[in-house]
């Protein structure tokens, strides 16, 4: 593998600017191939499956040696479950480059290169940077104008009118982007922001709206609705089986109806040693703790009578250890909060149905405060400390897909998707109200064109990312304006956010590998009783930092217990103690299980072997010479 000196690529050079458009998934695939070519001893590409149209779901596998991956422990890292989130996939790949090529001159963390071979050992890292290759291609412009829909483009009849994908968005102004139409309408719910006429905000209860906001397009099928059946397809990260919502247009016909989701799940089920699933995307479990299950109904055949709507307390405590690892992984702070894991998401499935640690990393959220607004920043920090105000499954409820005439309206659309990170900040706004100057500018986080985001673009990127409103004579709507933010701007993190996290993510992945459970035998005692009788006593101990399994995965009988058994030489018989002991779970840092057997027919010097067979740690064998 590459030593620290073989720096080949600098992460920063690879980040494309927003205006150049996001990287096409093929570019990431090329970068993966480059890594494999440079580091053939540790890196390889495995194709987990492919999308409906045959786009590959590629995984970069980092593993040393020839042992089958299915027998090893490690992490699965997934990004791009929402195809619009290109930068998340770039981050994952940049982290892999950081690990393999070294941090590079420009790496923000400034950390030294790691000895990956030493840190990896027998463990593995599997990284899937683009889990929705169809959606990623669509938002890279492969299929025409770039639009902000998150699905995998499976053809469907979203408005159930017997016609497939007949009314998608239209690039009316021919700029290659599907932006927004602001339509003067006294029945609309939007107002032009008085402080920034480029921005819109929702009318308050005591105000009357002046505009409707619709996604750029025509009523192609003449049914009165705009862009209501536009080939969005299925949202990958709402198609997993925990909390799956039946009968939604964008969740899929059934759990794992999509080749992308099924490929990920089949891979994880076939690799029980991938004990953590890291999802870089919409949900966070690393900055703030996910919510606790509200009711836990234990019993029944399999341990629980109902699925949980949150995590077990023990597991939240374990996640706090992982959060600490994340904080320690690099200098500085990353505090982008979110809710999660959302219903129907990979992260939720990983915890609730596969018994893995659900590690959600949200890289960025669009700014809600104006640049330089320190007071608000302080408030936000205070608010961050509050717990329990999380809303789960937000993304699942934000579907713009009910097929009704309002489907194109901004309030039912993507603006909601961006809202998750911001639950805490709504109370912020309330809190500020008393002291707020009526003339002080505010920003509506639900708006697809929020004032604070425009201010940020002005301050940080010369306003790039905003398409100025232009008059347009619409065939159905009359004189309107077309403009607004670049379609993926509110979703796809900016390159600097990714850059800042590359070293942290890389170091964090190694830290999670290091913190995994490790089994050892301690306190071995062999007591001869004469007549060939010997008592064997020892303890199986988890010396690693994390438990051998999440509490839920163990109690719901998802994670296979460690199986301890004896291998005895001919003539030696087990006369006390069971043939096998199943150890369901051991806590980290010393969780132990005492083991005791009585053997007969022992001749001095005979050796026996205690064997531990397990999925979540390396197997263990101890040979004992009997007294």
């Amino acid at each position, binding site marked *: 593998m590459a030593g620290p000196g073989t720096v080949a690529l600098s992460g920063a050079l690879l980040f494309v600017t927003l205006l150049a458009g996001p990287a096409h998934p093929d570019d990431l695939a090329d970068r993966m191939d480059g890594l494999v070519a440079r580091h053939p001893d540790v890196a390889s590409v495995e194709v987990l499956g492919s999308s409906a149209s045959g786009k590959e779901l590629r995984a970069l596998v980092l593993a040393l040696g020839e042992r089958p991956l299915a027998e090893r422990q490690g992490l699965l890292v997934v990004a791009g479950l929402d195809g619009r989130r290109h930068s998340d996939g770039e981050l994952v790949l940049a982290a892999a480059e950081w690990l393999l090529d070294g941090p590079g001159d420009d790496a923000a963390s400034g950390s030294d290169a790691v000895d990956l071979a030493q840190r990896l050992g027998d463990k593995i890292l599997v990284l899937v940077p683009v889990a929705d290759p169809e959606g990623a291609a669509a938002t890279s412009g492969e299929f025409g104008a770039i639009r902000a829909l998150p699905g995998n483009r499976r053809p469907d009849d979203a408005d159930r009118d017997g016609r497939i994908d007949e009314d998608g968005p239209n690039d009316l102004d021919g700029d290659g982007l599907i932006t927004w139409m602001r339509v003067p309408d006294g029945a609309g719910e939007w107002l032009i922001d008085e402080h920034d006429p480029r921005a819109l905000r929702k009318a308050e209860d005591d105000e009357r709206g002046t505009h409707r906001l619709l996604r750029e397009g025509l009523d192609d099928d003449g049914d009165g609705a705009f862009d209501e059946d536009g080939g969005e397809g299925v949202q990958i990260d709402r198609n997993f089986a925990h909390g799956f919502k*039946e009968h939604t247009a964008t969740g899929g*016909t059934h*759990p794992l109806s999509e080749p992308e989701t099924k490929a990920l799940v089949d891979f994880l089920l076939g690799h029980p040693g991938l004990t953590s699933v890291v999802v870089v995307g919409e949900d966070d479990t690393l900055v703030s703790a996910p919510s606790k299950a509200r009711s836990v109904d234990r019993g029944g055949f399999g341990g629980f009578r109902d699925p949980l709507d949150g995590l077990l307390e023990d597991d939240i405590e374990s996640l706090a250890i992982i959060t600490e690892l994340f904080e320690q992984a690099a200098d500085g702070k990353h505090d982008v909060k979110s809710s999660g894991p959302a219903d129907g998401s990979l992260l939720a499935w990983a915890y609730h149905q596969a018994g893995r640690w659900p590690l959600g990393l949200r890289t960025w959220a669009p700014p809600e405060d104006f640049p330089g607004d320190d007071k608000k920043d302080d408030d936000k920090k205070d608010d961050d400390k509050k717990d329990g105000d999380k809303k789960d499954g937000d993304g699942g409820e934000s579907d713009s897909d009910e097929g009704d005439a309002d489907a194109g309206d901004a309030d039912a659309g993507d603006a909601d998707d961006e809202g998750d990170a911001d639950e805490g900040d709504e109370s912020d706004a309330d809190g500020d109200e008393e002291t707020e100057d009526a003339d002080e500018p505010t920003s509506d986080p639900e708006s697809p064109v929020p004032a604070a985001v425009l201010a940020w673009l002005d301050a940080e990127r010369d306003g790039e990312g905003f398409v100025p409103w232009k008059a347009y004579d619409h065939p159905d709507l009359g004189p309107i304006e077309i403009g607004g933010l670049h379609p993926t701007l509110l979703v796809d993190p900016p390159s600097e956010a990714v850059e800042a996290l590359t070293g942290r993510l890389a170091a964090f992945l190694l830290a999670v590998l290091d913190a995994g459970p490790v089994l050892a035998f301690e306190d071995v005692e062999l007591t001869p009783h004469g007549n060939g009788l010997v008592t064997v006593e020892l303890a199986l101990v988890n010396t690693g930092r994390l438990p051998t399994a999440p509490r839920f995965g163990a109690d719901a009988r998802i994670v296979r217990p460690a199986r301890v058994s004896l291998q005895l030489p001919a003539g030696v018989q087990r006369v006390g103690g069971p*043939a096998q002991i199943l150890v369901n779970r051991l806590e980290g840092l010393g969780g132990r299980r005492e083991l005791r057997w009585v053997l007969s027919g022992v001749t001095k010097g005979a050796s026996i072997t205690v064997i531990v067979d397990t999925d979540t740690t390396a197997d263990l064998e101890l040979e004992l010479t009997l007294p």
Partner: protein
Amino acid sequence: MSHHRRNTSALLAVLMLGSLVPATLAQSTREHRLPISWSRFYDYDGIVDLCRQIAGEWPELCRLEFIGTSHEGRALPLLTISNPATGSEASKPAMWIDGNVHGNEVQGSEAALYTAWLLLERNGELDAITSLVDEAVFYIFPMVNPDGRQFWFDAPNTASSSRSGKRPFDNDRDGRVDEDGPDDLDGDGELLRMRKRVEVGTGDYILDPDDPRIMVRVSREDRVKLGADWVMFGGEGYDNDGDGRVNEDGPGGYDMNRNWPAGWMPRYVQYGAGDYPFSFPETAAVGSFISQHPNIAAVQSFHNSGGMMLRGPGTDSRTDYYPSADRSVYRAIGEDGERILPFYDYLVIYDDLYEVHGGFVDWTAETLGIISFTNELWAGDQYFGGSDTDLDRNQQRLFFDDHLMFGETWVDWHEVPHPDYGTVEVGGYRKMTGRTPPAFMIEEMLHRNAAFCIFHAQQMPKLELVSLDVADAGGGASYITVEIRNTRWIPTRTAVSALKGVGRPDIVTIAGDDLVVVAGGTGASRFDLASFNAVEHEPERLKLDGGIPGHGSIRLRWVVAGSGPFTVTIDAEKVVDLVVEGVL
């Protein structure tokens, strides 16, 4: 003004031909065109052979295809019965009939095939059947779980074992799969019960003094008093893997009727669920086929046993999937079903049986909006035709074995060495009794259940024109009013379909070369021509999410300008389209 029903003209011709056929022979004296013994059960190869015979005998009406492969590599046969002379398959409502998702519940396969055979044998002879073959499609899938079926035939089993498929599964979570199943200790080909005599007063059973074949359980406080001297160990087997437990990880170990995606729950809530919906090749094949056939309007899935016609939901949390309009359809079919199938009750799964997450008919009813039943074939009451024998259940079964089966279904207790328990006695009923009828009663079971399927299929929607009226609306405009009736119990769209947004609404289009549609809508008043629920957009293409109710009608009205011929088309997923032609 004239109109006609385009799609029924071919049918009328067939019906007229039918009337020229000489009076049919009664079934009891009739020579079957394809003689099949219906007083026995067939293994996998036997069922496939019957499928080939049936499709081979009626190639113009019946097609055999294989829609997938089981875990062990058995092809999954599907028969399609459809008369191409009366329209394409996709244009007609269809009924799906399957059986044997549980490997041991074998008779569902024969019941499905008997239905196919009956339809084809009597087509052209009996009008009720001929019209069904002409108007409907049948997808008949005899074996959802052929691996479980074949294992039930081949291996020592009980009436209840081999329910699962054969994909190995680690039921006891010890890292080894299928390592401790039942064992045929004495190699007699049967899996029976095990009992052992112990010291008097230390057991929990005594032998019935009138019939020592019967074990009588003794309550704890009476054990010493009654001298209980027998214990029972459950099914024949030993502790193969030395973990202290017997028969805890047998072949397979899952339930494919918990693997469907309606209210599916993972294994920690629902035994046998599988890793995710459609995770087995058999369920995936069925799921794919049914999802691609939106014309399916009726479903029957045969199981055993208990004598039930069940409908969903499988859990009380899903009762909202059965709105009252749909419940009335189920009731109408279920109530006549109880007459067709004496000893069977029309019941609701969660309420009358037990809770099921991810059941098949829950999926077809709740996710796909299809009126779906699952029959539990064969009821214990049938052994004695419901007559009072003055015998208790155990005595009845043994009496039946002694005097009607001549000892064929019972194996007397006999001593067998056991690796863990010393000498034990094994004995009990052979697998072909209890959940399946004796041979001489099989055919009646098949016929009555086929008749129930036919009755169910006869309720699939069918449209007819009630009236087409044109009236002057003034100013050069006209009213066109069309009333359409569904003459069957099952609506063109079930209420749950409208409620949950399942499938495509029925679409009614009106078109004419010289026709401008100004307004249109449903709910047209019979008397006030100006009164109807005008839609805002696309009046020439009305979408009826609620469909046309069973034994109900809808009245549609358009305001049009222009003149000349026009056509109104009702295009629905689960009914033969109706085309009405008129002239302004």
